[in-house]
């Protein structure tokens, strides 16, 4: 019933998941991205955070920080939410759904570190939050231009040869996703890594990289 028009980019579809007129799809490419997202979400679920070792300057002493159980629970919850949003974005067959999942990833990324009581981390989370919020303008703007110029948001239609998507819409989509945490905007995130909870902090980067990989497939296919 469904035939993915761009088999030379991500491969042929392996499985489709219909939600009314929204048809998510698994091609070899999106399936692998989905598995990566699932793997790191599972790691966030089963792993306990590390105890960071800090050096006490002015002496040869060092100490290991304790893990706050309340912080752990909240970080894990946000990391799982981030993983679910990433999973949705990986197989989405609709541009608007993709942008929604991408913005949800941005929100949950801030949530993962927002409860950590460290001035540098909170400053970084604040700056990253501003960049991520600003990035939603080109992100949703890109989707809006796609809809206005083609009359559809379905990737099954947009990937066909007969539909021409304006270059500016593609550029906006890429810019929007880059704002969610890719180079060069990731500099706002570097200090986030100070926060404890490696399995959860890792989800911040996994989600951004996977979103970027997915948007590249989308804009090349359109």
């Amino acid at each position, binding site marked *: 019933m469904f035939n993915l028009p761009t088999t*030379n*980019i*991500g*491969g042929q579809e392996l499985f489709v998941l219909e939600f009314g007129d929204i048809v998510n799809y698994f091609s*070899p*490419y999106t399936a*692998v*991205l989905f598995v*990566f997202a699932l*793997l*790191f979400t599972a*790691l966030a679920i*089963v*792993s*306990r*955070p*590390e*105890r*960071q*070792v*800090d*050096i006490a300057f002015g002496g040869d002493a060092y100490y*290991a920080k304790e893990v706050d159980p309340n912080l752990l629970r909240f970080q894990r919850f946000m990391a799982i939410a981030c993983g679910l949003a990433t999973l949705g974005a990986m197989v989405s067959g609709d541009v608007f759904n993709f942008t929604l999942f991408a913005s949800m990833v941005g929100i949950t990324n801030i949530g993962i570190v927002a409860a950590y009581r460290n001035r540098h981390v909170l400053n970084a989370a604040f700056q990253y939050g501003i960049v991520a919020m600003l990035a939603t303008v080109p992100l949703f703007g890109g989707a809006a231009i796609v809809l206005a110029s083609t009359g559809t948001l379905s990737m099954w239609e947009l990937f066909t040869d007969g539909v021409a998507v304006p270059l500016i819409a593609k550029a906006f989509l890429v810019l929007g996703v880059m704002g969610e945490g*890719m*180079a*060069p905007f*990731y*500099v706002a*995130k*570097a200090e986030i*890594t*100070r926060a404890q909870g*490696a*399995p959860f*902090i*890792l989800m911040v*980067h*996994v989600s951004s*990289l*996977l979103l*970027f*990989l997915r948007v*590249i*497939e989308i804009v*090349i296919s359109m």
Partner: protein
Amino acid sequence: MIEYLLFATFVGLLFHGIHRKVIARAQGRPGPPIWQEILHVLKFSFKETWIPKTASQTLFVAVVFVAIGIWGAALYLLLSGGSLLLLFGIYLIHKIVEHGMGLSSGSPYGKFGAIRSVISAASELPLLATVVAIYFFTHSLSIADIAAYQQVHGPLLVIAFPAAAAMYLVILSKMHYGPFSIIEAKEIVSGNMTEHFGVWRAGLEVGYALKTYVLLYAFVLLFIGQLPLALTLLLMLLILVSLSFVCAVTPMLSPYDTVTIQTLVTGALVVYIIVLGVVMG
């Protein structure tokens, strides 16, 4: 496939040994024997191993298996002629491995290495630009299609030289002891690998050997074409030796300089792609 995986691991480790030897000779030192990295892996495999008490234990171990898994999958992808975009994806997931490796131990040196790996994320941009430039010519991201294109039109190394140069920089970014090796710099002990020792280090070395083999093989396949195995290995060796010379004569850059250079190269390639777009319609 298993035997090819073992072969690629062996060749990758041998390449690492040759890399160290060439760097040493270029710097006027005798250097270790070329099979030193193979001996390292064997030695680490039988050393006493444990997980640091402060580590996130599951993640600490999982990253080792993910490293081997993704580069094993990348090798399969190249051999089966799969999507180049997927290879790009695996390269990006390797960044997560580097990052997770450093953060999971709790060590401050590992953490510094992990932060540097975030900063060095700019090394992915030249690879993305390379992928887009290749697509301009071949209109396909299937590795099999790209190899077939080169059989008809000649090597992309000639047709799309700037893209090949950017890919060369990508491989250089991932070489040990190179100008971009900031995540394992000695001023932070061994950076993100500091706390991974014993069998975990052996596993990582296997993953890294596969990575070197895959990246060099990908360069030959994408820019020269499908060749007999012996000739492919010879070309991979030549590329490796040239990379070793660059590593030998170039000091390690500061983290922000690595980002600047990689971003500039990406910018140059974007200009090239725009010109291609205008010229080729």
